[in-house]
């Protein structure tokens, strides 16, 4: 079982990295790009024997405790 975890900066938190990527996209011709936010993608592998609901709960805790800093970041995940 693999969980795909996405960690992104909260709205209102400045993202200088995203701004720099946006400028670079503009400079290579993609003028229509109005904003870029850079986040993190994390794959977490769990044994298939774990119940989905249980995995869901565990992932939630992993995100809250370590994978995201909820002062500046949001997280979401899907389990496949």
């Amino acid at each position: 079982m693999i969980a795909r975890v996405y960690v992104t900066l909260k709205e209102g938190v400045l993202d200088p990295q995203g701004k720099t990527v946006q400028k670079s996209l503009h400079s290579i011709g993609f003028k229509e790009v109005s904003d870029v936010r850079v986040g993190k993608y994390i794959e977490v592998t769990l044994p298939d024997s774990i119940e989905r609901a249980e995995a869901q709960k565990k992932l939630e805790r992993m995100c809250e405790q370590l994978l995201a800093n909820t002062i500046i970041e949001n997280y979401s995940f899907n389990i496949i």
Partner: protein
Amino acid sequence: MKWGVIVFPGSNCDHDCYHVLKHVLHQDTHFLWHKDDAHLDDFDALVLPGGFSYGDYLRTGAIAQFSPVMKSVVAFAKKGGLVLGICNGFQILLESGLLPGAMLRNASLKFICESVTLRVENSKNPFTHQCQKGEELSMPIAHMEGNYFIDPEGLKKLKDQGQIIFRYVKNPNGSQDDIAGISNEKGNVLGLMPHPERASESILGSQDGRRLFESAIHSLESNR
């Protein structure tokens, strides 16, 4: 006074802190390895030094907050023990929740290594009480993530309670409200991005950093 310098894998300012405390200020100073479930009862003060604990993986300070020694550090801080977090040590204090807020990448996206001027905003803190409010201190910074962030409500609380201890005179990294160092509500936990241990001997160009350590030693002595 008995000082402990916490050593995480990737700490690289631990020996500088040890040197200043032990050889310059003649304190009883000990290294504390992060894996040890340390007994800190007879320590007077702790330093979380700068560096790249756990390679700065995931986020700066994120992994270090779960080091075994941090449980003892949190308990020590809750009891009112003096804790000083410098640079990466500050980031660890933020991640572990001993101080409010979080660190973002520098606005320039560059690692900045230069001397900066700090203004003492609160001289009632144990680490600054030998300074004057408004006094300017010169110390180096060396970091990639020093862009301090806190939500507006949190910022108001910091201001109202005098928890902003140092501000940059000229903001180098985009830090909110020019914040360079903050304390917890009680004032016994201080985190700052600049390196006082690198500015504690005249041969290094500034001795202003000594003022923090000397203030702490003095306040510990007067509380005995």
